[in-house]
């Protein structure tokens, strides 16, 4: 099973790794620099000693070196002090050596040419390391006479090495401390930043277990959209459940009366058959209406694909012509290119089907359906639908009554009232608007709808006749 990626973990790794790498590189570089710097100052110190020796030295006529160390505290005087000096001829004969050498067998390395310098580090038999500076120069001991001499100074590097090591230890300690502190701060920061996510998680769990109905507010911008959408989803689900409960209740109650009448009619004998028929009709209509209400998924626009309206209207038109084949009707449709409905396909089909069916039933010969998309607030365009006919129209007094559930404007046309009530229900669920008026063009009824809409780019049909 693949482990789900963790944003926190990825972030920590993404930051810690380069951090540690760059710190390691810094430590390494600083250590090198320190060592090189120490080496440089050692060399300078040794050079300084050589200059001092040169000024204090005198070459006698017999070829002896007379070197008086003026400072009795000088390290060159004390035996095994860690600082040693020597003067040699070009051939390597020792002319003078410092008292500090005592009985140490020190090899100052090969002689160097006049004007040349050599610097090296050597490890002695006892394991200690010394740094040796050799300088060759021409000594004018008499006018016209010069000798090639090699002055050498050496220093024990133990102290310096100890300093280096201490520096490195301190460096590593400080930087490690820095890295740890930074990671701790990072961790704390992440926890703080991700607290809203944990809160969201927790609130969803509460909704799931029923302790909470909706998510709270106050989420940061990035999560606010998610919270809002989830709340919309929750609301529509709650509405749907309420509707189902409502519907079942209504259904159960409203069936009781016709059933009672039927029972009485059965007891009555043959002449009651017509009454039975009538009650069966009523039951059928009640069941129809309630089931259609329950089946409406209306209202939820979250995650709903757009339903292209043009092919739907073309199909409905063909269906109407077949269903109303006994009448000579002309159905005109004008659909804007790409007009689409945001919501359930079944709902909009039912809605338009009812309106067109009514129009076809009542018209004298002409029905017109228009559809277009109007941009309203950003991202909330409206699908505007208009169904008109050239029939008698719906009298103003009846218009409100017709929308009232179950009331019919005219008993003669079967199912007229229920159909429009259904349409009104669905439109309300989608937060749309419905208005009934008179058609200016066809002089019959005119029904206008406003529903959530969107323009679909891929729609091919632009005009249907």
């Amino acid at each position, binding site marked *: 099973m693949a482990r789900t990626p963790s944003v926190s973990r990825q972030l920590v790794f993404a930051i810690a790794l380069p951090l540690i790498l760059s710190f390691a590189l810094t430590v390494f570089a600083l250590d090198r620099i320190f060592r090189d710097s120490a080496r440089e100052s050692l060399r300078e110190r040794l050079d300084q000693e050589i200059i001092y020796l040169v000024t204090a030295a005198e070459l006698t006529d017999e070829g002896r070196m007379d070197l008086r160390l003026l400072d009795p505290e000088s390290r060159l005087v004390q035996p095994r002090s860690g600082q040693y000096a020597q003067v040699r001829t070009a051939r390597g004969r020792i002319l003078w050596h410092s008292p500090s050498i005592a009985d140490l067998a020190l090899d100052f390395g090969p002689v160097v040419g006049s004007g040349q310098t050599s610097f090296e580090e050597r490890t002695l038999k006892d394991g200690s390391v010394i740094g040796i500076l050799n300088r060759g120069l021409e000594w004018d001991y008499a006018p016209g006479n010069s000798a090639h001499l090699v002055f050498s100074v050496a220093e024990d590097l133990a102290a310096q090495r100890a300093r280096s090591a201490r520096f490195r230890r301190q460096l590593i300690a400080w930087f490690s401390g820095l890295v740890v502190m930074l990671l701790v701060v990072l961790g704390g920061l992440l926890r703080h930043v991700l607290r809203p996510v944990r809160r969201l998680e927790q609130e969803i769990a509460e909704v799931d277990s029923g302790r909470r109905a909706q998510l709270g507010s106050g989420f940061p911008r990035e999560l606010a959209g998610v919270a809002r959408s989830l709340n919309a989803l929750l609301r529509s689900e709650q509405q749907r459940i309420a509707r189902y409960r409502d519907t079942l209740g209504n259904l159960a109650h409203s069936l009781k009366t016709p059933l009672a009448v039927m029972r009485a009619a059965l007891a009555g004998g043959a002449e009651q058959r017509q009454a039975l028929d009538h009650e*069966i009709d009523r039951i*059928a209509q009640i069941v*129809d209406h309630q089931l*259609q209400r329950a*089946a409406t998924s209306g209202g939820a626009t979250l995650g709903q694909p757009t339903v292209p309206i043009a092919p*739907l209207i*073309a*199909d*409905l*038109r*063909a*269906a109407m*012509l*077949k*269903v*109303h*084949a*006994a*009448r*000579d*009707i*002309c*159905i*005109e449709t004008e659909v804007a290119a790409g007009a689409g409905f945001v919501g359930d*396909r*079944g709902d909009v*089909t*039912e809605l*338009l*089907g*009812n309106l067109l*069916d009514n129009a076809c039933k009542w018209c004298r*010969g002409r029905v017109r359906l228009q559809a277009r998309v109007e941009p309203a607030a950003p991202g909330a365009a409206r699908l505007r639908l208009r169904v008109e006919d050239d029939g008698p129209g719906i009298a103003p007094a009846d218009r409100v009554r017709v929308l009232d559930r179950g009331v019919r404007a005219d008993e003669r046309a079967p199912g007229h009232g229920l159909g429009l009530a259904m349409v009104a229900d669905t439109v309300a669920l989608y937060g749309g608007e419905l208005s009934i008026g008179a058609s200016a063009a066809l002089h019959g009824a005119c029904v206008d709808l406003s529903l959530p809409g969107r323009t679909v780019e891929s729609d091919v049909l632009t*005009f*249907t*006749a």
Partner: protein
Amino acid sequence: MRILVVEDEAALRESLKTDLSAAGHAVDVAADGEEGLYAALEYPIDVAIVDLGLPKLSGLELIRRLRAAGRSYGVLVLTARDRWQDKVEGLSAGADDYVAKPFHFGELQARLAALLRRASGWSTPLLQCGPMALDTRAQTVAVNGAPVELTSFEYRLLEHLMLHAGEVVSKTELTEKLYQQDFERDSNVIEVLIARLRRKLDPEETLKPIETLRGRGYRITLARSPAVP
């Protein structure tokens, strides 16, 4: 007529068979989609009644297949599902009419009779005569690509004439295609409809698509060409 009833609910199936036979029709029955399809393809049916919720093969699929096989007799869907989406699906799949359960037997009979008379263009989805193009599925007409608004009667007349392009079609035949009951027939109606058709199809009077043959009937003058979908 010879009627095929495809219905899985036994009680309803038997009662339909009894009632339709009593009305003088020859009735075949099938209890599931596969049996129904076999009967629909093999027997000389005049009209079929199909329930949508069938076992083994759905009613919609049955209708699609019998249309694909070239059977163009009337098909009436009889079902409890009567949301408009179901009606549209049934009619688009190939049905000609739709009756919801529960129904009145008298209404069913009337609609069956009407189906017999109506022209069913299922075998030819597109008809083309000269510049006139007729889409029998969408029930739309275009002349030189421009759509023409026709009433359903005008459309049916034109469809029938175009199906028999080049042949003479009598007024009687045309009347039967439009009306289900004889007493509704008015001999003038056809003339009025033809005149309206001519005005709508050929306003400039350059095409003269429909020819009147006195005493015999009407004929489309333009030959049928293979339709370009």
